[in-house]
């Protein structure tokens, strides 16, 4: 983990102080309407420490993550700008990172990205010039050595707090922790995990991470997504890549009357958070309330995680 003199970002500051952090997610709109971003962000402001802004998630064309992150900054909310290697080559990625920094963006989440075949334009060509590990290393080199991937000394280095995703539920299981270690070596400061429903498997993954000493080297934020309905749960379980929702949970939400399903979904989410708080090495939660941002406050409040600590001044 980097230990700069002044905190890079609010998120980095809170994590370095041992605070149990809360992040959320904001998917930019499928259009150019800045008010749509503002509306979502208003639901989150003051209830979380930083907000991830997705980068054309599920390969559906949306407002860019840099632009939407900038709208967040204007609203006084700290963004975690997501960036995928699917759509841009190394030239565009580095250029955009410098541009993002110049606009005040201080957190980045480095991803490979959902394959375009899932998206709205499956006829598109993908890029994948570099992978997420290469991107992590490139951002670290820019930050710590002030050089781009060619070794060129930059006039003004982007100082980013670097994140990556991990999916403890993907296969092959025995390689997942090796991959986490590789991401840490490449320079990642924090990890946000895939949504956790299979608690046993998550605990097993965390145990392996602790045994390898990895939880001492990286801040792990555990991902949760409240289920809105039995239909959504079933869709996520069967149609969304990398998702692992146990049958018992699907049954639990299917068994309550339809009008009470969303309440049950929130209850499950809160139980999950309670359990996550007790797992050594979990440094916070990442709430991905997909198109349900208005519920984030309720979840954070009921989880006993309000008020959020005041934002410390950072270098931006």
């Amino acid at each position, binding site marked *: 983990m980097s230990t700069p003199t002044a905190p890079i970002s609010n998120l980095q500051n809170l994590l370095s102080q041992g605070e149990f952090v809360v992040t959320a997610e904001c998917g930019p709109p499928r259009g150019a309407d800045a008010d749509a971003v503002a509306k979502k962000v208003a639901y989150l402001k003051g209830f979380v420490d930083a907000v991830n802004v997705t980068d054309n998630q599920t390969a559906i064309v949306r407002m860019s993550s840099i632009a939407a992150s900038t709208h967040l900054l204007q609203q006084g909310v700290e963004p975690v700008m997501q960036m995928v290697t*699917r759509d841009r080559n*190394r030239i565009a990625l580095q250029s955009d990172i410098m541009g993002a920094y110049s606009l005040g963006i201080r957190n980045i989440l480095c991803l*490979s*990205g*959902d*394959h375009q*075949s899932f998206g709205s334009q499956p006829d598109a060509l*993908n890029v*994948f*010039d*570099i*992978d*997420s*590990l*290469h991107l992590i*290393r490139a951002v670290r080199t820019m930050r710590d050595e002030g050089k781009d*991937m060619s070794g060129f000394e930059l006039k003004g280095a982007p100082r980013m707090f670097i994140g990556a*995703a*991990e*999916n403890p*539920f*993907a*296969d*092959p299981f*025995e*390689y997942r922790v*090796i*991959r986490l*270690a*590789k991401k840490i*070596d*490449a320079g990642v400061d924090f990890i946000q995990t*895939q949504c956790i429903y299979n608690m046993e498997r998550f605990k097993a993954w965390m145990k392996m991470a602790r045994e390898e000493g990895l939880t001492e080297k990286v801040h792990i934020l555990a991902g949760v997504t409240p289920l809105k309905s039995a239909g959504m749960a079933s869709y996520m379980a069967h149609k969304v*890549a*990398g998702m692992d929702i146990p049958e018992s949970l699907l049954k639990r939400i299917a068994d309550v009357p339809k009008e009470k399903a969303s309440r049950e979904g929130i209850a499950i989410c809160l139980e999950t958070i309670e359990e996550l708080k007790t797992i050594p090495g979990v440094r916070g939660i990442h709430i991905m309330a997909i198109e349900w941002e208005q519920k984030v406050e309720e979840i954070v409040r009921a989880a006993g995680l309000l008020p959020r600590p005041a934002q410390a001044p950072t270098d931006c």
Partner: protein
Amino acid sequence: MIVGEQKKIAEIKELVEPYGKVLILGCGTCVKTCFAGGEDEVATLASGLRLALSMEGKEIAVEELTVERQCEDEFIQQAAAAIARNEAVLSLACGAGVQDIARTFPKVPVLPGVNTTFIGILEKHGLFTEECLGCGDCKLAIFGSVCPIARCSKKLLNGPCGGSKDGKCEVDPSIDCAWQLIIDRMKELGQLGRLKSYVEPKDWRRSNAGGPRKLVRQDHIV
């Protein structure tokens, strides 16, 4: 081998319609092996085409010929007389063969009858799989001889993405996850530990990204 798939007859028909005499030219190497453009496929396509054209009252003479390879001048010349007798050539070779015929006979329209798909293998009867992108800088030694450039849908060099499930790729459950194969193979070889190392970004200059490639062998230039 180069794997290809014959175009649908409707598309082929449209391609040959402007001409009165057409030579269907097969290729007896790669595309023969993948049942797209060998002697048998030439014969089947010729009968199908004649039938389809006659049903529409179109008079197009269709001649058939197959040479060993359309990517070598020695074999191409064997088709010279037949090409001269016709107004156009419908080549059932890969894209290289089509272009080589066109280069050799500048005044003859040469039409593609096959969609060239990939460099691959016959994995089992009826199943051809892509194995190589011809990237010009082979790194198979790092990956237990399973290529993530050609076989991982995201070309990942440092491990599987979060979409690998039960050995299959998130893009399509009929696709094997290349990284599962790499890990299984390295385990089998007792070399799993090697996959802990960071693999540098690919230098794409030696691939097609660096522009069309040439291979010069000074020792063979006469």
